[in-house]
C-alpha cells in the first residue's frame, strides 16, 4: 500500500511541471497567481500522501497550513488590483 501512496505523491509532483511552465511564461501577474494557487493545492496533496507513504501522521499538519493560508497572497493581490493602494 505504501508503494501506491508514493506513486500518487510522485504523480502530484509531476503535475506541477506544466504549472511551473505557466508560472514562468504567464503574460500577466494574475496568470502566475492562478498557477501558484494550483501549485500549492498540489503541494498540500503531495504532503498528505507523503505522510501516508512514510507512515508518520505528524507530517499532516503542514498540509493544513498550506491549504488554509496559501490563498492569502491571492486575496492581497486582488485587493491591490481593485483598489490600487493597499
Amino acid at each position, binding site marked *: 500500500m505504501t508503494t501506491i501512496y508514493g506513486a500518487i505523491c510522485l504523480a502530484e509532483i509531476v503535475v506541477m511541471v506544466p504549472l*511551473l511552465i505557466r508560472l*514562468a511564461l504567464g503574460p500577466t501577474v494574475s496568470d502566475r497567481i492562478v498557477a501558484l494557487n494550483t501549485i500549492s493545492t498540489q503541494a498540500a496533496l503531495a504532503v498528505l500522501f507523503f505522510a501516508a507513504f512514510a507512515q508518520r501522521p505528524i507530517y499532516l499538519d503542514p498540509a493544513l497550513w498550506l491549504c488554509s493560508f*496559501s490563498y492569502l*497572497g491571492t486575496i492581497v493581490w486582488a485587493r491591490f488590483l481593485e483598489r*490600487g493602494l493597499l
Partner: protein
Amino acid sequence: MFWAIDYLCLAGVIVSAIAAIRIRNLNGAVMALSAMGTILSLLFIVLGAPDDAHSEVVVGAIALPTLYLIAIGKVRAHVTDDSDDLGEVGEGR
C-alpha cells in the same frame, strides 16, 4: 520511489528560483518566490523535517510574498504616477 520524489522537489525548487531571478516584472517575481517557498516546504517534508516545513510554509510561502506585495504596492503608488502598469498588460499570448 523516495529518491525520485526527492530529486523532483529539488528540480522544482531550482526551476522556480531561476524563474524568480529571471522574471523582469517585480510582482511576477514575487509569485515565483512564493512558489519556491511552497516547493521548498515540500522538500523539507520529504527530507523529514516537519518543523522546518511549518516555518517555511508560514514564512517563505505566505508571509514573505504578502509583505513584498504590500511593499511594492506602497512604493509604486507613492513614487510613480502611471500606476496603471501593474504588469497586467502582458505582451503576446
